[in-house]
């Protein structure tokens, strides 16, 4: 197993890409903390523990510094250390700038960018204290690399996540803490649920492969970046986008 004796936190771990990544980490031997603001994380944790895996749900609002701190403390209290963080929690509610309220802008920036910063900050603090290094994977997006009409706050936040990952990657390289971004295209998850057929066709058409990605396909990339196999990879983006940004 690729993650035996490793401790991983997955934020936004109760659904979508986060949930799938939690399951894969657990299957590969990791102890997994599911950090999510949704109580669905508790159900998921109980289910996985019932199957013999070792997981912990910590209800967390990633925009609240004290909650992020407490989540890190709960992780260390239960498992004794932290090896891996997948900072995945995010939302996608957006509009063209002239129709985007400051409130909605702020909410996206708070969750998708500030939330990543806070989780990274306290994970790094813990990893530095351990002196063991560690691996952080931040959830970027194709919109860390390419714009799209009307995608205002989301691309601003995700663009920030990409550069944050590069900067942290360089800053902590000598301490053995690697920081990379996984950058998915449109993935078939609850984040884009509720789309009509026309929107579905539109989104599919954006990907040269002619389909949306699957959560497993992103989760496998996250596992690669989090594993020892990626030990010389830091400050990079791994695009999982069916060719979207290569056009």
């Amino acid at each position: 197993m690729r993650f035996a004796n490793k401790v991983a936190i997955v934020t936004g771990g109760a659904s979508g890409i986060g949930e799938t990544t939690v399951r894969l980490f657990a299957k590969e031997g990791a102890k997994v903390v599911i950090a999510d603001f949704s109580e669905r994380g508790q159900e998921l944790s109980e289910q996985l523990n019932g199957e013999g895996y070792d997981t912990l749900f910590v209800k967390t609002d990633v925009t609240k510094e004290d909650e992020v701190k407490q989540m890190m403390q709960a992780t260390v209290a239960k498992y004794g250390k932290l090896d891996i963080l997948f900072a995945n929690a995010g939302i996608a509610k957006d509009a063209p700038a002239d129709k985007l309220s400051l409130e909605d802008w702020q909410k996206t920036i708070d969750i998708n960018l500030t939330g990543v910063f806070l989780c990274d900050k306290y994970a790094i603090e813990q990893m530095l204290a351990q002196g063991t290094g560690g691996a952080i994977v931040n959830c970027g997006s194709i919109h860390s690399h390419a714009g799209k009409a009307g995608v205002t706050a989301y691309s601003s936040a995700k663009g920030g996540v990409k550069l944050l990952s590069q900067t942290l990657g360089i800053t902590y390289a000598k301490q053995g803490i690697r920081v990379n971004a996984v950058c998915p295209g449109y993935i078939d998850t609850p984040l884009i649920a509720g789309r009509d057929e026309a929107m579905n066709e539109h989104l599919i058409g954006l990907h040269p492969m002619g389909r949306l990605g699957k959560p497993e396909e992103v989760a496998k990339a996250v596992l690669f970046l989090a594993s020892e196999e990626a030990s010389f990879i830091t400050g990079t983006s791994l695009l999982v986008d069916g060719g979207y940004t290569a056009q």
Partner: protein
Amino acid sequence: MARLEGKVAIITGGGTGIGKATALRFAKEGAKVIVTDINQESASKTVAEIQGAGGDAWAIAHDVTREEQWEQVVAETVQHYGKVDILFNNAGIYIIKPLAEITLEDWNRLMAINVTGVFLGMKHTMPVMAKQKSGSVINASSIAGLIGAPGHVLYGASKGAVRIMTKDAAIEYASTGVRVNSIHPGYIDTGMVAYASEATKHTKEELAQGVPTGRLGTVEDVSNIVLFLASDESSHVTGAEMVIDGGGTAQ
């Protein structure tokens, strides 16, 4: 289950360095490996190591600039193993020279190996893979295909070409089930870095100090990402560039 169980892979430049490490890694993960190299003896040594460990491999002397040799490599692979699942276009040469000292001969020779070789490899394997409705091509670019450096007009041009050819081929074949990605190693501890050290008059230690992680990469570091891109784990990754440089280009 092994990560490349039942897959057939062609690796060019498989006699040394990153190509050799990747051939060994692929074989360990269950692939049948066709190791090609301009130096038949080095390819045979890699194959002997694989076979010694119980793997299935085969060596072919191969000049990647010659189209008829590509036709032969692909035909023999299909004849022998029935298909081609993976191509690692790894063969390449490295010349560091000030712009004004690059001869047209240098230019043509390096371009023939680093660019034409990659083109011919894609040309002769991708239609076969498209018929199979699956395949993965990994092209060896470099951080020199992403950023500039003194003495790198020639090598950088070749690796920049590989980067964008990869994206063009990826888009053209995206609907066929064939994926194409490029890898961009930084300073990896191989003969090429020994050469770079000599040509730039910097010791290997000095080169490593320029890397944020403070060390050179290993050939195993690179073979790990090639394995990921070759395997079905990366089934939604195409036209992408994977950088393995210890943070070098993030600065």
